[in-house]
């Protein structure tokens, strides 16, 4: 992340003048008409889906047995034996984000949308390589073929990945990584872990991230990881990723934000793992880390 003093100075200036009694942050303009159009599209799609489900309700109901019962729900507490470290790291991440990462992403979001879409598609397309490998390791070959198809189509027809042509051919983006592979192999999420700069995770997901990075480093597509410009490209990738995450630290204003995010993140992960108790975290609670939720 430390790409030198000039970049830091630029980003700090974007963050505003910290010593004054008032700070201004210029934001990308709101686009209410477009936002509502997206909401409308989703609502109509949902209504259409509900209508078609209603027509074929019986066959569907027979095909979809209820697997997860309320008794399978994980306990309300979350395994967080590294709570002390995690809390201070959450605070560090919040400060880092507010001072550097968010202002940089905010500035980036003011660039023309087609340009940002191109950057986002480009990095997303490189990620398809990792998805193909991991879907294969997970034994989900259909998904793997879809990712491979997307990679081939977007790298050629999509001009090196700048355009997501595949999505228009009914091949939607569905990234996966080694963390999910480990889950499919039966590994528990492990303890909650707030990773520096990256944010909420668990031990398993952290291992997955490291493996994904190692794979990308080994492949070194577009000289992104080992070339002369790897710092610049890596920074651009990070800023693009941040700009596409609709989250701001402490927008809740609440001192309970750590507990809230931890609860939601781990439940989301467990449901993605299948929601069954076999994939629940260990129930032992460290006495030094009071139970959270």
């Amino acid at each position, binding site marked *: 992340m430390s790409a030198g003093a000039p970049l830091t100075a630029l980003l700090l200036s974007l963050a505003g003048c910290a010593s004054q009694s008032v700070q*201004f942050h210029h934001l990308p303009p709101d686009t209410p008409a477009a936002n509502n159009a997206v909401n409308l599209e989703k609502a109509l799609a949902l209504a259409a889906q509900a209508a078609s489900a209603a027509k074929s309700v019986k066959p569907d109901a027979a095909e979809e047995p209820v697997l997860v019962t309320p008794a399978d729900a994980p306990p309300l507490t979350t395994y967080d034996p590294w709570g002390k470290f995690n809390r201070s790291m959450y605070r560090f991440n919040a400060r880092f984000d507010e001072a550097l990462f968010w202002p940089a992403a905010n500035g980036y979001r003011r660039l023309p949308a087609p340009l940002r879409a191109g950057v986002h598609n480009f990095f997303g397309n490189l990620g398809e390589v990792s998805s193909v490998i991991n879907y294969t390791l997970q034994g989900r070959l259909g998904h793997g073929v879809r990712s491979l198809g997307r990679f081939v189509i977007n790298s050629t027809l999509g001009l090196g990945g700048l355009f997501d042509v595949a999505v228009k051919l009914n091949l939607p983006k569905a990234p996966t990584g080694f963390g999910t592979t480990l889950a499919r192999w039966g590994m528990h999420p492990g303890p909650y872990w707030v990773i520096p700069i990256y944010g909420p995770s668990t031990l398993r997901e952290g291992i997955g991230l490291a493996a994904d990075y190692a794979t990308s480093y080994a492949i070194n597509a577009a000289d992104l990881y080992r070339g002369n410009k790897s710092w610049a490209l890596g920074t651009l990738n990070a800023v693009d990723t941040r700009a596409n995450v609709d989250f701001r630290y402490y927008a809740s204003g609440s001192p309970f934000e750590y507990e809230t995010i931890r609860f*939601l993140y781990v439940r989301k992960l467990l449901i993605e793992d299948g929601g069954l108790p076999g994939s629940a975290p260990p129930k032992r609670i460290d006495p030094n880390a009071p139970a959270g939720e």
Partner: protein
Amino acid sequence: MKQCVAAIALAILFVYPAIAADTMPVEAPAVAGPATGLADLAALRATVFGTPPQDIAPLPEKVPVFQMDLALPWAQPVPAVYWFDRRLRVWFSAQDKPAPLAIVIAGTGGDGNTAKLSILRAVLYGAGYHVLTMPSPTFPGFIVSASSTGVAGDLMQDGRDLYGAIQQIISHLPRKVRITDIDILGYSLGGANAAVVKSIDASERRLNIHRALMINPPVSLFSSVGRLDKLYAITLGNGDAGVERFYQQLYATLANLYRASDRVQLDEDFLFEAAASVLRTKAEFSTAIALTFRIALINVFFAGDLYSGSGVVVDPKHPPGADASLDDTFRILRSKPFSEYFTRVFAPYYLRRRPGSTVDELIAGNRLDAIGDALRNDPDYYAQTNSDDLILDAPELDWLQRTLGARIQVYDHGGHLGNLGDRQQVTDMLDMLGGRWKERAQ
């Protein structure tokens, strides 16, 4: 929709033991009538899902916006646990020519950039206003950075803090922002706040606020929140069994929906779809509403306890540090109803601060009729509400209609804010703020 889904997800947090209150020297205000006030199933649905996108008024393509973070001179020393809330954060959309300013205040627990505020900002900016969107005085960021007491929920005190904050904000605006007139509005509790701020300004004359509009306001603050306490007790009970069951059922439902889908990530779109399956009955909507309110209450309770030194959940001699674990505090707080905040934090604090005052006076001071004369006699107060709003009962709705006369518009449907941003609500709002309502009413 996105916001309601997030609220439902957050609501899962609230499951856990309700602990009976200790001896209560002060009695909480009693609430009569149904816990859902005037609302039926359709009203509860509208309250949770909000205005359907197809009913939203025409919105502008682009709305410029900047964020202001202000350090206010009267703010109390910031407790370590609130290190991130030192400055009051507000959002401003400026016209590039002289224009009236609309100040918009969020409802209970809301920050200055909620989805509802975004809609109001868009339509007001589109109608030619500069727009300042403010957090609720019950939002933790406001309590820490702008409250002179730290104990939120007192209409007049919160009004005075808001009034001071607005003056500071306006004095720090860039010079190019030229303001020709000032109107103030808010939704839910923010509506009551807006009216109180105008009434303070009527005597202090520092801003010369022209018109005030209340959208779905409460009439008696404590009756409305008392109803929500009651709704919580009915849907989730006072013990942990009901709430734990709710959590487990919700988890299982979401997990099965996810398994049945072809998704590889549990994202917002999934929750958007899931909400329609999860929420169908009156009880389910009621649960979601009660839990969402309880989330806001936790923050108000914690801050009030900390600032007042009441010692209910925070040891005044050993306040939590910046990295302290708040797990235990949270677990205790999520079981505490508003009535306990009133009896153990709010009332003792304000009775101490205002020697000679009584609990009845505190309750009366938090009814809109504390500014009843102004609402009745000043033609620049307006209101919009619904005949099926869950935070009102029939006598309260009647009081609003009698007090405001032709200056209130009551819609048949919408529940609590479930029609905010729809074409009719927006048209009427702009007519009220623009001084065209009188001609229309005649």
